[in-house]
């Protein structure tokens, strides 16, 4: 292990980490938004929209992110839609994550016993009130473990961004190995930087899971 080499590579890895984090969080935010919207559409059984959303979820849950990114980045320009690598990354991550998040929120909503809706209605609440005050808070707390798992999954998936020439951690490691052949140092730094990125998320996630349980009714 050559420490001078590691020190000299540090700035490049830091840049790459920041880029990965930026696109990662944008993608996660986008996926949360998409997920909530899709889950609400499916839960309220809106005609037509429900079918479209269902198809979108199946399509994106059953294909790899790498293939989705290749399609966005290499195929779409051929029909005149040109997207920058950054936007491609965010969009791809958001679309993939949206499909996963939608499933998580949907099962969160469905896990709430029908008697709660009925009780709320018998208290004179209208549909929006039932949704906003009774279903949503509980659904959110029940979805937290799923959402945390999805966020970690999405941040891990960012490792394929190097294929669409984004200078993320993976790209940097590959690039430096290709130039200076310091394989061990580069790979160790790669592992350490991914740990730095994901360990806090993982720890924070389990903390959050314990914190939000109070919103649940019963047991």
């Amino acid at each position, binding site marked *: 292990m050559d420490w001078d080499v590691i020190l000299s590579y540090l700035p490049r890895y830091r840049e790459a980490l920041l880029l990965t984090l930026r696109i990662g969080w944008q993608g996660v935010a986008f996926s949360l938004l998409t997920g909530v919207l899709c889950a609400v559409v499916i839960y309220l059984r809106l005609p037509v929209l429900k079918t479209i959303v269902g198809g979108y979820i*199946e*399509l994106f*849950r*059953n*294909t*790899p992110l*790498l*293939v*989705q990114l*290749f*399609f966005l980045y*290499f*195929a*779409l*320009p*051929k*029909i005149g839609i040109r997207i920058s690598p950054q936007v491609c990354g965010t969009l791809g991550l958001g679309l993939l994550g949206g499909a996963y998040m939608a499933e998580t929120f949907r099962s969160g909503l469905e896990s709430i016993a029908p008697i709660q809706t009925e009780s709320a209605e018998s208290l004179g609440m209208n549909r929006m009130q039932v949704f906003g005050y009774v279903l949503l808070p509980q659904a959110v707390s029940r979805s937290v473990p799923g959402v945390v798992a999805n966020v*970690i999954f999405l941040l*891990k*998936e*960012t*490792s*394929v961004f190097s*294929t669409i020439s984004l200078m993320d951690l*993976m790209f940097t*490691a*590959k690039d430096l*190995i290709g130039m200076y052949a310091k*394989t*061990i140092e580069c*790979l160790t730094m*790669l*592992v350490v930087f*991914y*740990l730095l990125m*994901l*360990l806090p*998320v*993982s720890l924070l996630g389990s903390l959050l899971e314990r914190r939000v349980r109070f919103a649940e009714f019963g047991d």
Partner: protein
Amino acid sequence: MQSLGIDVLFKGTNFLRLLGGLWVALRISLVSVSVSILLGLAVGVLMTSKNPIIKAFFRVYLEIVRIMPQMVLLFVVFFGSTRVFGWNLAPETSAVIVFSFWGVAEMGDLVRGALISIPRIQYESAEALGMTENQTYLYIILPQTIRRLIPLSINLITRMIKTTSLVIMIGIVEVLKVAQQIIEANRRVSPNAAFGIFAVVFLLYFLLCWPISKLASYLEKRWA
């Protein structure tokens, strides 16, 4: 507007080559899934152990698999381990090692979850009926656990298939690589072929994974 690559797809043996690439991905995932299920069953039983050392060991193992991208593991095994230990690893072997390492952890966790979800009373009732520990496991616990596990392991197969798309990075010629080769070879004749070919690859993955995940959710509902 020029053709979008559908003609290129049916030129020569191009479509068959794509399917061949898909088969490579499928082969790697089937081997890895088999290893994962077999070892995962054992690891899952070990995970329910009360021994603090075993518990800590598997906690660390699970956490590593949970937060390390499979791509990083692929690089570490394919480029790193060969450098450190000086051995030769074929790309496909490294892929199987990495995906099994990942799959055993996932499967083990599923097995552990299924085992602890069996209510205490089932063990106690079996004991009250005079069954030995082995009989309890064989006739009471295992049948119920397997029922819960089958849909989850089928799901693991689709996740495995999707993850095998990463092996393109360590030089395995799978469906995406074949697609790139076809596009490059026809660049002059059909410059827009990328659209059609990548759309077909997208669709192929979907057609492969969708029925499998449908089967998993069907079984999950039926056996719940």
